[in-house]
């Protein structure tokens, strides 16, 4: 029908792309962002807002199961693209969008209960992902709870003491592996009471890190990339976009004369902002510098390393006692160098991970 075609054409003129960029695959990630820019597409924050799932190879370890779960969570119409290092990113993504355009509603519908399907897949793999977290309440508990199976196979949150002397529900939440402005592949298990982080532990890092050849050659662009992520978390879309534009300019035409003034302008806006000052001062203090000082240094001409050398445990320890927004800012202002983490295989390595 002409109407469905017209609707499909309009609907795919602005594809929302969920990008899962394996650590180190910077060139591919930037190529996807460039494609989005040229196509008028947008990067999505969650799978429910996404049409295209773009995954850079090799997404292994915890990323493999995360990608499967994200794929299950995406509503139709959807398309998946696996991007290897030498691929023509634009071509593959355009093909994915063409797939979206030809999608028509299926009758009868083939997807009904992806939650149960996911649980069956997990059990078929022989292990529960929740084992990795070492949490007390996981899916095993559902079976020996005296016969009352909670809806969805999930338990209710257990209670724990909190800092105000109350005993409140403590919800275990996993931050990562796929979260916007978060180091992809890193999983930090936090226990939230309200939005306050009570405990935070890092899971063993089991994603292979690709040798990155973009950032080491362009340190200024790398700093702007980190600054843009932090600014995006602060909700300052205009300045974050400007930082990303300057970063792209640094990578394509590093001798452009507008780079210096534009970076200065961004730095000035950030320095003068009261909101940024109150949000970042005194946060994530490491080696004498707080988050605001680091952000300002990223936006200036300093040639210092991006972040002080800190172990993941130290970074995560800074999150405890902070609320969720602050915890996210802590991780964004102390970007860990994932290539230094020996990619240890998980205990279940070899199960198609």
């Amino acid at each position, binding site marked *: 029908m002409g109407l469905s075609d017209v*609707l499909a054409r309009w609907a795919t003129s602005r594809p929302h792309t969920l990008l*899962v960029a394996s650590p180190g695959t910077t060139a591919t990630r930037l190529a996807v962002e460039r494609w989005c820019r040229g196509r008028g597409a947008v990067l999505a924050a*969650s*799978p*429910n807002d996404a049409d295209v799932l773009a995954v850079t190879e090799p997404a292994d370890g*915890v990323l493999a*199961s*995360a*990608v499967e*779960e*994200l794929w*299950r*969570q995406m*509503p*139709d119409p959807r398309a998946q693209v696996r991007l290897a290092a030498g691929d023509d990113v634009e071509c593959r993504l355009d093909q994915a969008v063409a797939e979206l355009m030809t999608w028509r*509603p*299926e*009758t009868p*519908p083939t*997807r*009904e*209960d*992806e*939650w149960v399907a*996911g*649980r069956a897949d*997990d059990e078929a793999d022989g292990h529960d*992902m*929740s084992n990795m*977290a070492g*949490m007390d309440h*996981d*899916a095993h508990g559902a079976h020996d709870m005296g016969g009352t199976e909670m809806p*969805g196979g*999930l*338990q*209710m*949150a*257990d209670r724990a003491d*909190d800092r*105000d002397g*109350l005993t*409140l*529900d403590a*919800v*275990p*939440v*996993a*931050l*990562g*592996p*796929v*979260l916007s402005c*978060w180091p992809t592949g890193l*999983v930090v298990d936090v226990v939230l*009471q*309200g939005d*306050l982080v009570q405990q935070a532990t890092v899971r063993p890092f089991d994603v292979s890190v690709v040798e990155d050849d973009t950032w080491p050659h362009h340190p200024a662009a790398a700093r702007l990339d980190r600054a843009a992520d932090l600014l995006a978390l602060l909700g300052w879309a205009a300045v974050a976009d400007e930082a990303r534009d300057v970063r792209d300019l640094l990578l394509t035409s590093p001798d452009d004369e507008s780079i210096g003034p534009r970076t200065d302008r961004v730095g000035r806006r950030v320095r003068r902002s009261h909101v940024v000052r109150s949000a970042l001062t005194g946060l994530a203090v490491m080696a004498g510098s707080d988050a605001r000082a680091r952000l300002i240094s990223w936006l200036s001409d300093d040639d210092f390393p991006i972040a002080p050398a800190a172990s993941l445990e130290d970074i995560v320890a800074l999150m405890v006692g902070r*609320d969720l927004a*602050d915890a996210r800012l802590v991780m964004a202002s102390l970007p860990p160098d994932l290539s230094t983490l020996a990619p240890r295989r998980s205990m279940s390595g070899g199960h198609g991970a």
Partner: protein
Amino acid sequence: MAGFVAVSAMLATALALVATAHLVHRAVSGVSCPVVAGPFESGLRPTVHAASRYHARWYTVTLLFLAFDVEMLFMYPWAVVVRSAGVGSIVEMFLFLGVLMAGVVYAWREGAFRWA
């Protein structure tokens, strides 16, 4: 009361609009039953229900808010009659508000507004 007839008509229209939107969507997307999929937790499956007793750390502010919210019961009628009731009504209302603001200042000094 004629106003409320129009309000009821608008409520009915609004609900009809929402229902129509749902029907149009069902016709276009072709699915009558939504797919059950996990909530987004960074790609991993959650282990507990999110529905929990959330620790609203700003509960002290809610108590202050309650006092002021009840005070609005007086403020709206006062606004209508202040012109005709004269200076006396202004003095009374602002004395009342002054007492409430003293409570706010006390709460502020006690740290009711700091919870992070």
